[in-house]
C-alpha cells in the first residue's frame, strides 16, 4: 500500500499548491519598449536572413565554371596529348655522348 500512500502524498501536495494564488499574466503589459525592440529585431533579422547576391549566384556560378572547365579540357586534351607524345619520342632518340677527354691523364 506504499504506492497508494505516496501517490496520495503527491496529490495532496499538488492540491495544496493549486490553491496558491497564481500569476496568470492576464493583466500584464509588455515592459516599456519590449514590443518595439522585438518587432524591430524580428523584421531586421528577416531582412538579414534574405540570401545575399553572392549566395544567390554562387551555385549557378559554380555550375558555369564546371562547364567551362570541362569544355577547356575536352578542347585542349588532344593537342596536349600530341605534344606529350612528341616529347616522349624525342626522349627515346639516341643520345650523343661527347668525349671531352681527360686532359690531366
Amino acid at each position, binding site marked *: 500500500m506504499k504506492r497508494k500512500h505516496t501517490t496520495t502524498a503527491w496529490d495532496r501536495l499538488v492540491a*495544496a499548491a493549486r490553491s496558491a494564488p497564481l*500569476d496568470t*499574466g492576464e493583466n500584464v503589459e509588455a515592459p516599456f519598449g519590449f514590443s518595439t525592440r522585438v518587432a524591430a529585431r524580428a523584421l531586421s533579422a528577416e531582412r538579414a536572413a534574405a540570401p545575399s547576391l553572392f549566395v544567390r549566384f554562387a551555385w549557378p556560378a559554380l555550375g558555369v565554371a564546371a562547364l567551362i572547365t570541362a569544355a577547356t579540357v575536352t578542347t585542349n586534351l588532344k593537342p596536349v596529348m600530341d605534344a606529350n607524345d612528341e616529347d616522349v619520342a624525342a626522349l627515346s632518340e639516341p643520345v650523343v655522348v661527347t668525349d671531352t677527354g681527360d686532359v690531366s691523364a
Partner: protein
Amino acid sequence: MPEQDAETFDFPECLARVRAKDQDAAKRLVEQLYPLVIRIVRSHLPRRVAEEDLAQEIFLKMFTRLEQYQAQVPFPHWVSRIAVTTCIDHLRAQKRRPEFRMADLPEEQADVLNDVMTNENEVSAGDALAARELVFKLLDQLKPDDRMVLQLLDLEQKSLAEIKDLTGWNTTLIKVRAFRARRKLQKLFEELQSKERT
C-alpha cells in the same frame, strides 16, 4: 496601447500586415500576445533564465516561423506551443538538476512535506505558497519532458487533449511520461521517508 480581447483582435489582418513587413503590426502582435507568453514563461521558467529574455526568444521564433503557420489552429494556440517547446528546450539545456535535500528546505516547506508524507490532514491554506514552492523543487528532480507533463496535468489541471495541443506529443506518450514522473516522485518520497526515520 492596451491589448484588445483575444477574441476581438483581428489576427488574420495583423498577420497579413506583419508578412508585408509592417513593423507597427508586428509591435501590436507582440503586445497582444505578451500576457499569454509571459504566463507560460512564468509557469515553466527554467532556473537562471530571465523571463524577458525567454519571452523575447519565443517572439523571435514566432516571427521566424510565421510562414509555417497554416491557420489550422487559432494563432494564440500556435504561439503557446512555441512557448512551451522553447521552455522545454531551456529545461533540457540545464544539464544539472539541483539535489533535493530535506535539510535544505525552509522550515515552512519542510513542515508541508512532513504533513503530506506523514498524516492525512489537508495542508492548510496558509501553506499554499510553500506547497507550490515545494512542488517546483520536486518537479526540478524530473526530466524536462516528464516535468512538463506532470506540471500541466497535476498543477495546471490541463486535459490530455490540451497537453497534446501544447506539446505536440501523442496521448500515449503523455500518459507514459506522467506515469514515469509519478513513479520517480514516489521513489523520492520513499527515500525522504526512510531518511526521516534514520
